[in-house]
């Protein structure tokens, strides 16, 4: 007999998860309900619908960054001037998700907990070194996104843990970020491969720090640390980006599926990485490149990586 609960607070939701083994949380339902109706998974017997838990839809700004509630929608992120200007790669990613209806209902928490290797917010959250807060009757724990993502469709959260928020740490000055994905069409698409990049420029104009992460290239979104190491200290130009991007390919084991072959994905990773790096560096230097970067690539970038 299937059961349904609609808690109005996070604490109530956590208590329900503890009480009903096998219960599943549903936020926007754009993964869970769609997969169940499509026959991919069975609809869980106990559904805990958290859309009305208003304490999961808050934004808190403090000295160590911003904390976005699990229910934060892609539509909100896409339009937020705060996220767009400080954590641009996340806004670039949310703006690409599905259709306006998908973005209005799909949540950041759901995107993370669904843990698709092709999820768009994963790579941006990795380059920000974001962490999440998980709540259960045992208390609250903080887990870096890098440790949360365990495999395709798997996280390290326990079945009774509720993701309550995602923290985006503050970034140093002269930092820019971007998320770029390769897509076959402009809407209702899932990344063929995607890359997020973060670049901090030093006083000498060189790359003082950088981070790169990939989506749809491995069983989880992953950092490409060799590419990052190479780029530090170099000039932020097309040649450096291409060299770093070539190394990013080494971080991954792409698969063949309906959207692309492993070989094609491998070849395209360096393209999206150098595009993401170019946009991140341009933003770090103060150039205004509108969200989503994917649809506003500077022509010189497109040309130099083609």
């Amino acid at each position: 007999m299937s059961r349904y609960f609609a808690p109005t607070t996070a604490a109530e939701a956590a208590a329900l998860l503890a009480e009903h083994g096998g219960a599943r949380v549903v936020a926007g339902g754009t993964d869970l309900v769609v997969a169940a109706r499509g026959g991919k998974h069975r609809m869980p017997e106990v559904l805990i619908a958290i859309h009305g838990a208003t304490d999961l839809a808050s934004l808190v700004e403090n000295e160590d960054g911003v904390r976005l509630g699990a229910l934060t929608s892609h539509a909100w992120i896409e339009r937020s001037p705060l996220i767009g200007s400080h954590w641009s790669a996340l806004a670039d990613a949310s703006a690409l998700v599905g259709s306006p209806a998908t973005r209005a209902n799909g949540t950041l928490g759901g995107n993370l907990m669904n843990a698709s290797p092709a999820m768009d917010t994963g790579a941006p959250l990795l380059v920000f070194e974001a962490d999440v807060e998980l709540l259960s009757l045992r208390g609250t724990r903080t887990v870096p996104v890098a440790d949360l993502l365990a495999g395709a469709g798997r996280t390290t959260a326990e079945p009774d843990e509720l993701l309550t928020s995602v923290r985006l740490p503050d970034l140093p000055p002269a930092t820019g970020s971007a998320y770029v994905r390769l897509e076959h069409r402009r809407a209702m698409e899932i990344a063929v491969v995607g890359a997020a990049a973060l670049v901090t420029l030093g006083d000498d104009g060189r790359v003082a720090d950088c981070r790169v992460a990939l989506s749809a290239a491995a069983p989880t979104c992953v950092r490409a640390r060799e590419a990052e190491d190479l780029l530090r200290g170099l000039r932020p130009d097309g040649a450096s980006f291409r060299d770093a991007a070539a190394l990013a390919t080494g971080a991954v084991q792409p698969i063949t599926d309906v959207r692309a072959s492993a070989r094609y994905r491998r070849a395209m990773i360096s393209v999206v990485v150098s595009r993401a790096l170019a946009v991140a560096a341009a933003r770090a230097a103060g150039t205004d490149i509108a969200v989503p970067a994917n649809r506003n690539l500077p022509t010189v970038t497109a040309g130099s990586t083609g």
Partner: protein
Amino acid sequence: MKYPLNVRVNGVETSVDVEPHRSLLNVLREDIGLTGPKEGCDDSECGACMVLVDGRPVNSCSYLALQTDGREITTIEGVSEPSCPHSIQQALLEEGGVQCGFCTPGIVMSAKALLDANPSCDEDEVRLALGGNLCRCTGYQKIVRAVLRAAEQLQDRAGTTG
């Protein structure tokens, strides 16, 4: 097990009892008798089932009916009276943006969500807003023209009353 669902549908308070797994589309069509929203794919791909929940577009085929409890739903039936079509509907007729009509209720709802939020939209914004709506007949150009035309009319009207 059934749970009570109390919603305001097109301005009318409505109560039905539904099972947890049932979609909003299914409940609207089978229990509430509103057959304007269509089932094209039942998989969030086509947009024929689009309705507004608290003014936001939702693929009703893939949304749990119970999650709309206490909320406000607008379907195509609530957009206008047949004798007095909405500007979007009138423009679709005038531009030839309707052929078989199956996609039309969903197109109108997506367009309404856009124009309610952003009446001064441009062509790019219209195309993005309709990104989740498939049409097998028209080739989209006439639909996009119609939405832009409706936007102009709504703005003109806003101008004269404002």
